[in-house]
């Protein structure tokens, strides 16, 4: 122990002795029995104090004051008080009692005062057991502050052997639990006992208020001192079925700083002796059904990770790129997806996210924890409910397919310990129609593409409207459209031919000559009209200089079609006449056989010509 530390402790001590004179100011609450357990097995100092309170006075008491010296108060990360009733197995604990910071008048300002409000007022002669659990970060100081690779890590812990309280304490004791049964030194007072890995102070009896007796324990601890100086957790909600969590760590080993050179060979050969104070890996306890887990940093994926799990949890073991010695830093990102229905709920017209707040790694202390909840675009009426005090702010984030940005709730917490890994809720309103924003964006994007194509195809982008090539192109377009029309008329004609044939087949089946004649009449009319339509197109093609080659084909086609039409009409007339004269079937067949042959040949030729024109 350095002389400065001792001197400081003396100062503190003398300071607290002075407090005794303030005691009459406070209510006459009495602590009849007090037990304190200090857990030093990790980097977080956890102190559990069990106070048996008694009210010997006449006044009703509803508040209990808990003072912390300022140097402790700044490290105080977590404070919770519960009352318990009954004893042994029937003991029941209440939920945590409301605690607030107070500034009682006439009390020394170098103390930070917390006031616990009791659920039931404590009457005269009544007693109550109060359990106060606290967690302190950075309360353990490495001493020596710098060690080599081969050294073990030693830590100093300072406390008072007497409970600092504005109330008189009848009987009290303190036990300090160490990670290993090895101590360098510890303050010896009366009634001090060291056995195994535990140091016991007390019992001490009948101490006045503000009794103080500093103790220091200098002990061996090779527990990991993983401190995340900054941890940004992004929780992104997608109503399409996923809660994406991304955690950016900025990790440092806050234990004794490593000096001298680092030998990888020594470390590899005897990691427990040469590198006892370092840590190699961390285990993150992720929720069950976590999927798409990744672990990376600026360079890229870090392959030294392992994952296993069961129905209640998923464990992710990550190993940084190098063993973490004292003072060494690393930064990395882990990310995972969670199924939406496990975390998002609907109640009273609002939706809310119910998810845990803190870092998923046990024994990692976070100096500055920022939890960002990214809500979907279009969320309104956002409110947050966190079981402890946090700094809240709002932001906007642009992500995939966003127009106005997504609302972000940023929650900031300093000194976060695993005890803060509690569930918190973010309430918001969201219309299901807003869910269609993203598909609508994609759809409109594609639609604009099609519209652009249509505009391009319709627009005439020629600069010189009088150039010969442009005029030729225009003419060619017209020729093409005329050809297409001729084609469609021809196809129509062929359809009518088929109809005539069909009417003949009907005739042979039913013998209904009148129906057949009617069919013939309508076909004649239609063919006439079609040939009328054909005339202007033919004359256009004849006059067009570009259509010289195709015109001959078209002419041929028209001639062949005409011939085909004539033959067909002859056939039709012959058959109907024969039916009227009631000739025999064989006789009719003999008569039309030569015509039929010609028809088949002509039809073939017409089809071939149509194909040729189609290729133009």
């Amino acid at each position: 122990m350095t002389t400065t530390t001792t001197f400081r402790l003396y100062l503190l001590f003398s300071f607290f002795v002075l407090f005794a004179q303030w005691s009459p100011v406070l209510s006459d609450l009495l602590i009849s029995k007090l037990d304190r357990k200090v857990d030093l097995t990790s980097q977080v100092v956890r102190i559990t104090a069990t106070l048996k309170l008694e009210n010997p006075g006449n006044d009703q008491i509803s508040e209990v004051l808990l003072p912390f010296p300022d140097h402790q108060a700044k490290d105080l990360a977590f404070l919770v008080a519960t009352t318990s009733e009954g004893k042994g197995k029937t003991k029941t604990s209440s939920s945590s009692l409301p605690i607030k910071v107070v500034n009682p008048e006439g009390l020394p300002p170098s103390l930070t005062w917390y006031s616990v409000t009791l659920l039931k007022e404590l009457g005269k002669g009544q007693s109550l057991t109060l359990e106060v659990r606290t967690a302190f970060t950075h309360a353990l100081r490495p001493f020596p502050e710098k060690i080599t690779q081969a050294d073990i890590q030693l830590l100093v812990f300072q406390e008072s052997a007497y409970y600092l309280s504005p109330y008189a304490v009848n009987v009290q004791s303190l036990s300090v639990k160490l990670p290993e049964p090895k101590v360098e030194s510890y303050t010896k007072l009366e009634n001090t006992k060291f056995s195994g890995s535990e140091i016991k102070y007390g019992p001490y009896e009948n101490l006045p208020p503000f009794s103080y007796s500093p103790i220091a324990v200098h002990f061996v601890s090779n527990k990991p001192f993983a401190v995340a100086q900054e941890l940004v957790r992004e929780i992104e909600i997608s109503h399409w079925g996923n809660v994406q969590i991304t955690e950016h760590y900025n990790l440092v080993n806050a234990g004794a700083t490593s000096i001298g050179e680092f030998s990888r060979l020594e470390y590899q050969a005897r990691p427990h002796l040469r590198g006892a104070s370092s840590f190699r890996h961390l285990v993150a306890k992720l929720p069950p059904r976590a999927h798409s887990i990744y672990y990376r940093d600026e360079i890229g994926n870090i392959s030294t990770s392992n994952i296993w799990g069961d129905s209640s949890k998923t464990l992710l073991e990550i190993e940084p790129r190098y063993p973490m010695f004292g003072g060494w830093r690393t930064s990395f990102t882990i990310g995972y997806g969670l199924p939406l229905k496990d975390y998002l709920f609907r109640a009273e017209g609002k939706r809310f996210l119910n998810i845990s707040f803190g870092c998923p790694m046990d024994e990692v202390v976070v100096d500055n924890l920022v939890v960002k909840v990214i809500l979907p675009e279009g969320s309104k009426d956002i409110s947050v409910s966190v079981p402890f005090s946090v700094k809240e702010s709002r932001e906007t984030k642009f992500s995939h397919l966003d127009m106005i940005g997504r609302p972000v709730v940023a929650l900031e917490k300093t000194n976060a310990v695993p005890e803060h890994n509690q569930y918190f809720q973010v309430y918001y309103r969201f219309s299901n129609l807003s869910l269609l924003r993203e598909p609508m964006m994609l759809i409109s994007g594609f639609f604009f593409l099609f519209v652009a194509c249509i505009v391009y195809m319709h627009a005439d982008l020629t600069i010189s409207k009088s150039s010969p090539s442009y005029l030729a192109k225009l003419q060619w377009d017209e020729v093409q459209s005329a050809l297409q029309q001729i084609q469609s008329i021809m196809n129509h004609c062929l359809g009518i031919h088929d109809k005539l044939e069909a009417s003949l087949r009907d005739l042979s089946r039913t013998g209904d000559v009148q129906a057949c004649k009617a069919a013939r009449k309508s076909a004649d009319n239609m063919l006439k009209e079609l040939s009328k339509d054909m005339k202007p197109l033919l004359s256009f093609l004849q006059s067009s200089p570009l259509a010289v080659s195709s015109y001959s084909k078209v002419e041929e086609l028209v001639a062949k079609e005409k011939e085909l039409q004539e033959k067909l009409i002859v056939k039709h007339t012959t058959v109907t006449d024969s039916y009227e004269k009631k000739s025999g079937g064989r006789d009719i067949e003999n008569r039309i056989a030569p015509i039929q042959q010609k028809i088949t040949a002509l039809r073939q030729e017409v089809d071939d010509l149509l194909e040729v024109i189609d290729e133009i």
Partner: protein
Amino acid sequence: MVESAKHISSPVPITWYPTLAVFMLAIGLIVTASFFIYEATSPRKYRSLAKELTTGAVASVFLGFGSLFLLLASGVYV
């Protein structure tokens, strides 16, 4: 409040996303193909704007939802 709350899940079960992506994109691409065939083959004079727009709209609806489901299936939760 948490006890009385109802779970919220995605409008479409997430296991359907890959199938939906494949089918909607396939249909979308077929309609797109027919759109471009129509654009390229029919002469400018005889093209109907309504037909072009409806084909384009149908194709973009299928392509839009298809690409959304493709994004979701590949893990990009929009």
